[in-house]
């Protein structure tokens, strides 16, 4: 049996109904959004189901959309069914004020550090994570550097003239 995007979607909507939203297929990769309360359930379903069998977490990362009020932070999961060679992308959105998302560590060991990294970058609080602390940056850091409002540059750099060619700005 070939696992098609339509079939996956069908199975998902059967199980979760309206919870699966924002379905797209950019460049052939099935993408959908689930409410953040359901992320673990959906993943568990995708993992356990014999036919779906998405048992490999390829990637987990955060995204910050400062313009989308109430759903500023997103967690993007890329799941992979190796046997059928199908990938899907699952997104979870959360409010920047209360960025709580359930952790996937119970399902995938590999989520451990990736969630820590996401926490480190975006401050997304993975509920139930065994060891949620900063991983790449120093412990003392008091902000989440990859959020759009924080500057990239090291403020101590002196050997550059930003005024040149309008590069002082935000781009």
């Amino acid at each position, binding site marked *: 049996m070939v696992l098609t995007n339509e079939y996956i979607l069908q199975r998902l909507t059967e199980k979760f109904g309206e919870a699966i939203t924002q379905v797209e297929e950019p460049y052939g990769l099935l993408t959908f959004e689930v409410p953040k309360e359901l992320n673990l359930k959906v993943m568990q379903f995708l993992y356990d189901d014999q036919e779906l069998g998405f048992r490999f977490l390829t990637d987990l990362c955060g995204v910050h959309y400062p313009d989308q009020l109430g759903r500023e932070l997103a967690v993007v999961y890329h799941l992979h069914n190796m046997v059928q060679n199908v990938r899907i992308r699952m997104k979870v959105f959360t409010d920047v004020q209360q960025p709580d998302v359930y952790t996937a560590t119970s399902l995938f060991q590999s989520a451990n550090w990736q969630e820590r990294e996401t926490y480190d970058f975006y401050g997304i609080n993975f509920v139930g994570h065994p060891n949620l602390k900063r991983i790449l940056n120093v412990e003392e850091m008091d902000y989440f550097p990859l959020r759009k409002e924080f500057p990239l540059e090291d403020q101590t750099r002196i050997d*550059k*003239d930003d005024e040149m060619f309008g*590069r002082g700005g935000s781009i």
Partner: protein
Amino acid sequence: MQTLTNRSKAVDRHPMTVWEKMYLPAIAKGMSITLSHFFKKKPTINYPEETRPFSPVFRGLHILNRDEEGRERCTACGLCAVACPAEAITMEAAERKEGEEQLYREEKYAAKYEINMLRCIFCGLCEEACPKDAIYLSETFAPSNYKREGFIYGKNDLLIPDPKTEPELYRKAVGERSRKS
């Protein structure tokens, strides 16, 4: 887990034979290999005395080009500075004045052109970005230095020698390849 492809091929990992368990044969084999290298010709380059040719496209120290009449080609358009991922290039444009035609090719020129060689990552994007045939990466690697100040290369350090006033040096800088063409 079932196989995902039909191309898998297990690596050869048979248990050690008695012969191999004796340590010595493998050691002897290894030692014969090392001994054979003992007498081999060495590929080492005695660096400061001998040098290895760099490839003709090697991306080394920058050089600001002049045209045949010794005029600077740079017109301070700033593309190189924009293209530089390390933001190492700084320049100030100036209008060419009367009587400077033999110095600058276009109406604008770079009054100040500095590259911070410590920042530079020699990616060659500036060379690619230049629409005026002005900046090139040469086959010279950037020399080390004792102080940070030694790495701010100004126009003096970057400009190719003037073909009119210093033809010898100019020819050296242009090198063999272009002379042929």
